[in-house]
């Protein structure tokens, strides 16, 4: 600056190093928590698994028939005992995803039924090759931190389709894998393959790179298969998301706070069980929410309420110091258009601001039913925008630039200032798919929509050479485990 002399150091200067955002206050989170605890202690939940019920009883909970009631102290113990942070590694054992505080990561949605064919634009069944391509695409998209299959592939044994998908993901990407599992048997096979790829199950436990996603979509009801998977995961030390999929006005109360109470109660049952199985087992609380649309008679997961409730849920998990995940960023649009853009942006922005550790909603249209690679690429771009906003900016003498302002003066310009040259690259976000061309240049480049540019970008990324493949011995091992699964399941 232009001062001749101004030396000082000062105290008492607090800054927000990132945006500060909260849907729920600490007191509100606590109210929701104590209500959920009261619910489980007084009314309990239905636990369909005999093995689980026996364990609950052995640990001091009250079991009557299928109903389990859990004393407050046990619930609080479980919340304290579960780790507040989980590190996921890549396939090579290097740290990749830090699930802690409000750190957020992005992954493709894993529950679609169909996929948009990139050439025809029509919906069709998901194939194993689609899973391969999703893995290879996710590998190249810098803001996709975990990979998952868009959905269960067809053309293979239905019961082991998830495993075929897993094998395809494992062989084509080094990033951590989010893998939905429906029961303990399926989980066991996944664990076997995952361990084979890194050498042993001990290695897998120490450098986890697989996260199970186990779904619960009924109020206060936990089915046998899901809990079997939960107990297996806890025993093996494999992190898992207990994903509460609830619809306000159908499987949850109309009031948002009530939905959060119920979702938390569901999570607490799985959490407590996992800690009873193995104290310190890594647990992630997940959500997929919406409200019932009376007029259209659908449960639209791209609705703004999905983001609203999800934000509350992620804040709640932060309050409890439990890592969070969620299916946010879906669109209800039937194809890629402005509605899709608006909806998935809204979902990604909201869940990132809320501090969701894994946002597993990339690349999905029609309320999640249809997967789209182009939409995944666009979601990646949006997250880049959102991250730029979240990280805010530096404030110090150089950045405040008063000296530069004085030098340039009224009527001047900053373009040729060395201050500009020095800072412009790091202060700005550099988009890849967003158009900033003037109209003539845009027309000359083909007058394309962003969706078209995204499709071309996907093709470009997929045509690049693939990531280092698995060792052929390992690949063979995986194939044999897969064959076993095909026969047994």
């Amino acid at each position: 600056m232009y001062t001749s002399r101004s030396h000082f150091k000062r105290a008492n200067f607090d800054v927000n190093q990132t945006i500060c955002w909260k849907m729920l206050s600490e007191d509100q989170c606590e109210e929701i928590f104590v209500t959920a605890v009261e619910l489980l202690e007084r009314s309990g939940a239905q636990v369909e698994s005999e093995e689980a019920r026996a364990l609950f009883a052995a640990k001091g909970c009250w079991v009557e028939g299928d109903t389990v009631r859990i004393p407050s102290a046990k619930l609080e113990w479980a919340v304290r005992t579960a780790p507040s942070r989980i590190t996921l590694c890549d396939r090579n054992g290097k740290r990749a995803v830090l699930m802690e505080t409000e750190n957020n990561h992005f992954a493709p949605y894993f529950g679609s039924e169909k996929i948009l064919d990139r050439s025809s634009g029509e919906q069709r069944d998901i194939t194993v090759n689609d899973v391969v391509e999703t893995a290879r695409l996710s590998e190249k998209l810098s803001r996709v931190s975990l990979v998952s299959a868009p959905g269960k592939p067809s053309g293979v044994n239905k019961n082991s389709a998830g495993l075929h998908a897993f094998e395809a993901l494992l062989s084509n990407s080094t990033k951590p894998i989010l893998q939905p599992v429906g029961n303990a048997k399926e989980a066991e096979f996944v664990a076997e393959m995952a361990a084979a790829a890194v050498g042993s199950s001990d290695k897998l436990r120490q450098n986890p790179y697989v996260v199970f996603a186990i779904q619960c979509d009924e109020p206060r009801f936990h089915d046998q298969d899901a809990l079997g998977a939960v107990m297996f995961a806890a025993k093996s030390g494999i992190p898992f998301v207990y994903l509460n999929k609830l619809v306000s006005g159908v499987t949850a109360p109309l009031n948002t706070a009530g939905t959060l109470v119920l979702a938390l109660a569901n999570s607490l049952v799985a959490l407590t069980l996992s800690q009873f199985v193995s104290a310190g087992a890594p647990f992630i609380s997940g959500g997929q929410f919406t409200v019932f649309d009376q007029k259209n008679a659908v449960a639209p997961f791209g609705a703004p309420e999905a983001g609203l409730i999800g934000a509350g849920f992620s804040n709640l998990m932060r309050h409890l110091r439990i890592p969070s995940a969620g299916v946010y960023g879906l669109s209800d649009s039937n194809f890629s258009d402005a509605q899709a853009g608006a909806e998935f942006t809204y979902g990604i922005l909201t869940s990132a601001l809320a501090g969701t550790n894994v946002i597993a909603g990339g690349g999905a249209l029609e309320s999640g039913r249809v997967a789209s690679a182009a939409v995944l690429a666009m979601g990646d771009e949006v997250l880049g925008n959102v991250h730029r906003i979240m990280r805010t900016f530096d404030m110090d003498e150089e950045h405040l630039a008063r000296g530069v302002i004085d030098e340039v003066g009224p009527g001047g310009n900053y373009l040729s200032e060395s201050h500009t040259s020095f800072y412009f690259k790091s202060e700005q976000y550099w988009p890849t798919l967003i158009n900033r061309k003037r109209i003539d240049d845009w027309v000359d480049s083909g007058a394309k929509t962003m969706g078209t540019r995204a499709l071309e970008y996907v093709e470009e990324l997929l045509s690049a050479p693939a990531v280092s493949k698995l060792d052929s011995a390992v690949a063979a091992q995986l194939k044999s485990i897969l064959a076993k699964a095909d026969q047994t399941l």
Partner: protein
Amino acid sequence: MKNRVNYRANKTPSMKVLTDSQCQEILLAAEEVLFRTGMEYHDPQALEILKKHGCFVDGIRVRIPPFLVERALRSCQKHVVLCNSRTGKPEMFLEGNNAYFGSGSGTPFFRDPYTGERKRSTNQSIGWATKVLDAMPNIDFCMSLGLVQDVPLLVADRWEFEQQLLNTSKPIVNVVTDQWAQADCIAMAEAVAGGAEELRRHPFITLYLEPISPGIIAAESCQKVITGAEKGIPTIFTPCIMAGTTAPATIAGVLVQGIAESLSGLVLSQCAGEGAAYIMGGVYTIMDMSSTIFSYGAPEMDLMLACLTDMGHYLNLPVFGTNGCTDSIIVDEQAGIEAALSITMTNLSGPNLNHDIGYCEYGTTANLDLVVMDNEIVGMARRLTAGIPVNENTLSLDEIESVPPKGRFRNIWDTDWDDDEDFIPKTNNRNFESDLISRAAHDMWKSNGRKSLTERCNETVRDIIENYEPEQLPKDVKAKIRDIVEHAVAKIPGVN
């Protein structure tokens, strides 16, 4: 029944970028800039006023002592309300975090809603745009979304304002080229309000000006500030600055310069008429360093405007923000993305008067499909900002316990009120409903013609143009307005 103390709740989500320490830092840095570097005011009357109040005036360069800034911040009106032009009833309370939404003004081009062609905007296109804005429930105020280019250009702004007055009863941000146009438009507004005092008491317009950054306030802009202060009409002052070009490349630097420019206008305003209502505006963004466009979609814009808003709250000044716009040439995924980001961020940070809905092609072309789409997005954003009420009732413990595991919950909102009651309280937490957002199953969407949101919005636009009737002005008022337009005297810029 719970009885407790110490329950601090977020009734709505909270978002902050800057701490109070950072706000103070920026304010003091801006005061230093005004004191050390100063601004250029290209108007003799403004220079005289500023000199009289204690500024250091060297030619057209004015350096403002900090005490004037601090005094101006205290004296300006804080409770600023805009009214409906037909009824005079208050419609917009520009204070705190109240976020209202409206369109942008003077785009040279316009997408024809019938042919999709990009054409020069005209008297008719502005009439259409205003009707659409008037019809949209989530749009609160209007700017013109065009320039009248099929009449003599030097008086075109009177025609523009006339179209707006005829086609909407919502508050209008009035944008004109020079002080003579401003006088004409104020006369037109007074005709609608019923007199100068009525306009002062129930203002339904604001004046609008921009400095030429960095550091210059042109003659006509100085005059607008002075007029607004003298006439008691709220005035918006909007630096439109690009990081790295007309402002420093760093975001902190942009904020310092932008706030300094805003305060320079505030000081002139309060010196010209103490207590005048002054609204701090901003279009703070980056220049894209490849294409050199002034970017209307950059995330930096959303971030900087959130900072401007935090400053506005800190300074207790109403804020005029920017959102609902895109760099995309057409209303595609990018438009949806950029509009959703900016509108949601805006609603979360809480600037009061938020413009540029409908702006495509980085502010060059107005698109009415985007206006209709933004109306939906505002609804989505407002659903988020309604927040999550957490109390014994909403926690729903009884309801949850009364539904067995795997059971189903009811889906109808109960009201505790009889239909016979006259007073029906509004609830903030109604679900978002939309006729344009598609939630249809695939086959139904296909059989309905595979339309995109943009196409559905376009149908709404045409329907409004053809069938919607805004509330009309009385015949004699229309005649008075027409008279002023027809007798407008053209002034050549730079000569008079």
